[in-house]
């Protein structure tokens, strides 16, 4: 290429980089505005034109955490932590052995089994919602956080099996065979050979399962009440306007989204793989 063409393409490259930056900022703007508004007073939050430079305050957060007299979000936050963490642990417990039987020591027709798991993910939540509700009602399990734990486990298990299958398949069979020939037994092989290679993938899987459980609304809304309500259900309390409450809404939305944002950024590299059910690496 001539030097003029190189310079022209470099200039074009810089221009497109600028476009990318602008679009990135545009997409992030609602979140930035949410964060800024959460630190404004209610009066400054509800102005037109918007008050960009208004004084900052923690009142929105005080209101949200209930020191202002409203309902405390702590029970809902704790329920969400229990539902997300417990279901993620159950998912790992069930998915790890399954992924092992689908990759390192595969059963016959292992791809069929893998696709069965995937097909359950394509069954919409509403398909089983009513029978689950009726079952829970008769079994006295309505408004019980452990019912959500079971449902979230089933919701995430297919994703986890797919992801972990692909991570475990990356462990070279030759290394496992070599360890076996050297006399290593299965627990040793799993701990010393498989785990170090597969651990980053397992961690990412766990983070993605955590995100999906934390976000879930429909099951939680239908199956829980006052005792077992989760953070998203708590947020639905803000659906109807209640006078000046924008700063409080923003504070609440931001606090409840923080665990997801943190987990998402931590799992950034494996996010695509998880979201595409392992189809894209």
């Amino acid at each position: 290429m001539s030097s003029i063409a190189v310079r022209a393409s470099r200039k074009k490259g810089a221009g497109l980089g600028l476009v990318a930056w602008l679009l990135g900022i545009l997409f992030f703007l609602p979140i930035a505005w949410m964060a800024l508004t959460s630190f404004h007073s209610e009066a400054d939050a509800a102005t037109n034109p918007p008050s960009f430079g208004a004084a900052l305050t923690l009142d929105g957060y005080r209101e949200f955490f209930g020191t202002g007299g409203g309902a405390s979000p702590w029970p809902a936050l704790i329920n969400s932590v229990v539902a997300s963490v417990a279901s993620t642990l159950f998912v790992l417990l069930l998915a790890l052995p399954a992924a092992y039987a689908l990759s390192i020591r595969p059963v016959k027709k292992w791809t069929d089994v893998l696709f069965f798991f995937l097909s359950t993910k394509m069954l919409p939540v509403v398909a089983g919602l009513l029978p689950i509700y009726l079952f829970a009602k008769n079994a006295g399990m309505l408004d019980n956080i452990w019912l959500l734990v079971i449902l979230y486990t089933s919701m995430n298990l297919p994703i986890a099996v797919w992801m972990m299958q692909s991570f475990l398949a990356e462990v070279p069979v030759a290394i496992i065979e070599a360890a076996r020939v050297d006399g290593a037994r299965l627990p040793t092989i799993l701990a010393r050979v498989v785990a170090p290679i597969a651990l980053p993938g397992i961690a990412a899987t766990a983070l993605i399962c955590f995100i999906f459980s934390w976000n879930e609304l429909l099951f939680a809304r239908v199956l829980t009440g006052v005792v077992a309500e989760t953070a998203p259900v708590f947020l639905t309390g803000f659906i109807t306007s209640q006078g000046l409450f924008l700063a409080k809404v923003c504070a609440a939305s931001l606090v409840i989204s923080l665990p997801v944002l943190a987990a998402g950024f931590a799992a950034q590299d494996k996010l695509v793989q998880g979201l595409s059910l392992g189809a894209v690496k």
Partner: protein
Amino acid sequence: MTATTTAPLATPHVRPVRQPSARLRAWATRAPLLPALVFMIVVTQLPFVATLVISFFDWNALYPKARHFTGIDNYQQVLTDADLRHSVWTTVLLTVAVVLVSLVLGLALALLLDRKFRGRGVVRTLLIAPFLVVPVAAALLWKHVLYNPEYGLLNGLLHYVGGPQPDWISNTPLLAVEMSLVWQWTPFMMLILLAGLQSRDQQQMEAARVDGASDWQIFRYLTLPHLRRYLELGALLGSIYIVQNFDAVFTITSGGLGTANLPYTVYQSFYQAHENGLASAAGVLVVIGSIIIATFALRVVSSLFREEVGRA
């Protein structure tokens, strides 16, 4: 399984001792899989069978004694009831609009991010963020903080340029829901398409460039054919998630103003109207729609999957 049980039968007197051990070994291989498999069948497949059964009953939870078998009446009612038919149409419209727009935007962003420029990592992070806001929180953000006609950010910004001050949700309710969903789903599409772009054969592209192919020619004849399956995958997975969307409809319009989609209708008809039979029939219809999408989705996933396995 058939192989392990029938093969020894053909020569039973030659190696009779090996039969149980082979079977045992097959079960030992299968054992780690069983808990997950059984769990999934019990928790996801059984309730659906129950939904299917209930959908053939006239059953209002407030009048449990009047429950009786009605055949396909519920389906006829779902498909002929104006409101319910409207919700089928809304579901299609919502899904197609959100998937198409976020796919096109996602492709544009992925192409931009595929180039090297200063701060690419930061821009990528900024773009992923909308997908990582809790869906209810995102819907609340759009409903109250952006769309509010009096003090929302959108009208606030329009105020600066002397633009109109529309009441977004009342004037264009479905569009309002769609915009918030496009905002959340564009990052998803971008991530999948970016992964697709980065898996292109760099040597082939270099060769095309040396041969004098223009940027547009490379995009049209190399990039786009390669991306086809990633576009399909994004569209199908997006459809599967958005057909099921409940959070945005529930939060932004509470199903009002003609925005009730099928999942919301199912929720409403049994949670508020206690019409178990009708709700189940509507649920079964959602499933049939999903199965149609899913059949294609599984085909795409499986072709990508076999390619990956073949490469390994």
